[in-house]
Every structure is written in structure tokens, then in C-alpha cells.
């Protein structure tokens, strides 16, 4: 059973998440960069992911959109890849698209998302770093944009884990 994600705050604008996976780096990279795979794990209970476009190259654009199944309201993220170094490093900016939601989150400044993967003995370590434009942006992004929309229970996880082969 992998250790749970660790979150640290290296500076007042940054959130860093570290997590290990019992899988080769190539697979973890694929799960983050192939739209058909991204859809299967990124998201929230009661939502689907109608848009998952990714042009995986430096300068290529991506767009993600989640839609609540109950009322059809959608929100998402979009941006551009700035570093694509398979399978070890992926960097992109990330703009929030509030869509139909009521979030009072700053949409002007992007955050910079950086994923680094390293592998040892079949275990891959992922370090995901989110650098926000300001302290306020970090607070608001994670408190309103992420947790309000993502406060879904672990019951879906239990279901997924139970159904996994």
C-alpha cells in the first residue's frame, strides 16, 4: 500500500506534493499525459470529464473540464506545456476557468505546475509542485477552487478500489 501523499509548503507561494506509486515511471508518466488515462483518475465523485485535450509538446496547449452530472455545471483548467521531458519532467502553466461555477477565484494569474518523476526498484516518486502568483492566489485556489469543488467523500475511492482487478 503506497504511503499517502505528503504536502509541504516550501515557500509562501508554493505547495509541494510528494507521492510514491508502485509502478514504473513510464506508466506514471503515461497516466499523467494520455487523455484516456487522465480521465480515469483525475476528477471528483459525481462529475465526469467532458474535455481532456492535451497537445503534449513544448508550446502545446491543454484543456481540462469537469462537469457535475447532477446539474451540468462545469469548470476547468487550461494552459500551455513549457517543459516536456518524458518520463521525468513535465511543466505547464495552469489557468483556472470558472465556467458555470460561482468561485471567486482569481483567474488572471496562472500557477506553474511542475511534475518530476524518479524511479527506484520499481517504485516511482512523484513530486508535484504548484507555484502560485501570490500568497492570496495560493490560499484561494486551494480553499475555494479545489476543496469546495472537490469535497467528495472517499466512498467513490472505496468503490474504485473494490472494483480494481
Amino acid at each position, binding site marked *: 500500500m*503506497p504511503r*499517502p501523499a505528503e504536502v509541504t509548503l516550501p515557500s*509562501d507561494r508554493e505547495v509541494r506534493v510528494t507521492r510514491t506509486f508502485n509502478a514504473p515511471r513510464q506508466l506514471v508518466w503515461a497516466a499523467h499525459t494520455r487523455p484516456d488515462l487522465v480521465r480515469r483518475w483525475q476528477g471528483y465523485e459525481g462529475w465526469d470529464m467532458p474535455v481532456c485535450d492535451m497537445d503534449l509538446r513544448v508550446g502545446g496547449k491543454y484543456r481540462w473540464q469537469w462537469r457535475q452530472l447532477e446539474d451540468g455545471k462545469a469548470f476547468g483548467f487550461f494552459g500551455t506545456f513549457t517543459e516536456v521531458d518524458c518520463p521525468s519532467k513535465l511543466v505547464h502553466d495552469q489557468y483556472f476557468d470558472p465556467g458555470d461555477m460561482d468561485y471567486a477565484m482569481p483567474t488572471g494569474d496562472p500557477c506553474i505546475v511542475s511534475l518530476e518523476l524518479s524511479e527506484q526498484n520499481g517504485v516511482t516518486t512523484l513530486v508535484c509542485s504548484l507555484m502560485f502568483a501570490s500568497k492570496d492566489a495560493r490560499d484561494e485556489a486551494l480553499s475555494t477552487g479545489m476543496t469546495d469543488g472537490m469535497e467528495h467523500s472517499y466512498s467513490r*475511492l472505496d468503490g*474504485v478500489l473494490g472494483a480494481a482487478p
Partner: protein
Amino acid sequence: MNAPKHLDLTFAALSDPTRRAILARLATGEASVTELAEPFELSQPAISKHLKVLERAGLISMGVDAQRRPRKLEPGRLEEAMDWIERCRETFEQNYRRLDALLDELQATPRGRKRTKG
């Protein structure tokens, strides 16, 4: 959304290792400025500067003893910060558990059966 300003001040206060060490010391009981300065090679004014930052953030308060002026830890703001970090962590963790399941599935698939191009 509850009090983002508190979080700003709290995290700014926590971003310094001396201040974190001061909080760790106060977690074991209140202490005067002299007592708090003791483990560090810093002057008392330097420690006082750190204490002001911690007070402004509401992380510590000053006791009533006018002579000793002991500082004590105020747990409320720390709990707020810990809650915030924990929500952050849970968010990622939910997704990563799904990713665990997906990775298990991808590794369980025999080679050649589910090959996709590209």
C-alpha cells in the same frame, strides 16, 4: 471561505526555521524571551522580532506576568493552518488513490493484449 488573511500571516510566520523552533519550544509550555533566546545564537532583539511576527499572526500571546512576560502558544491558528494543509493533501490523495488503482490495472494487463498506438 474562512479568513484567508490569517493563513497568510500564519504561513509567513511558519516559513522561518527559528520561528518554528520557538513554536516547538512553546508547545511544551510557556517561556520568557530570555528562555526562548537561549538555544539560538541570536541577540534578544532578533528574537523579539521573531516573536512580534508570531504575535501578529496570532500564533502566540503574552501572559500577564509583567516582569517575565511569558509567551504562550495559541493553538487556534495552527489548527487552521493544519486543516488547510490536510484538505490540500486529501484532495491530492483522493486522486492518487484512483491513480493507484489504474496503475495496478495497467500492470495486470498482459503484454500484447491491450496495445495501443502512440
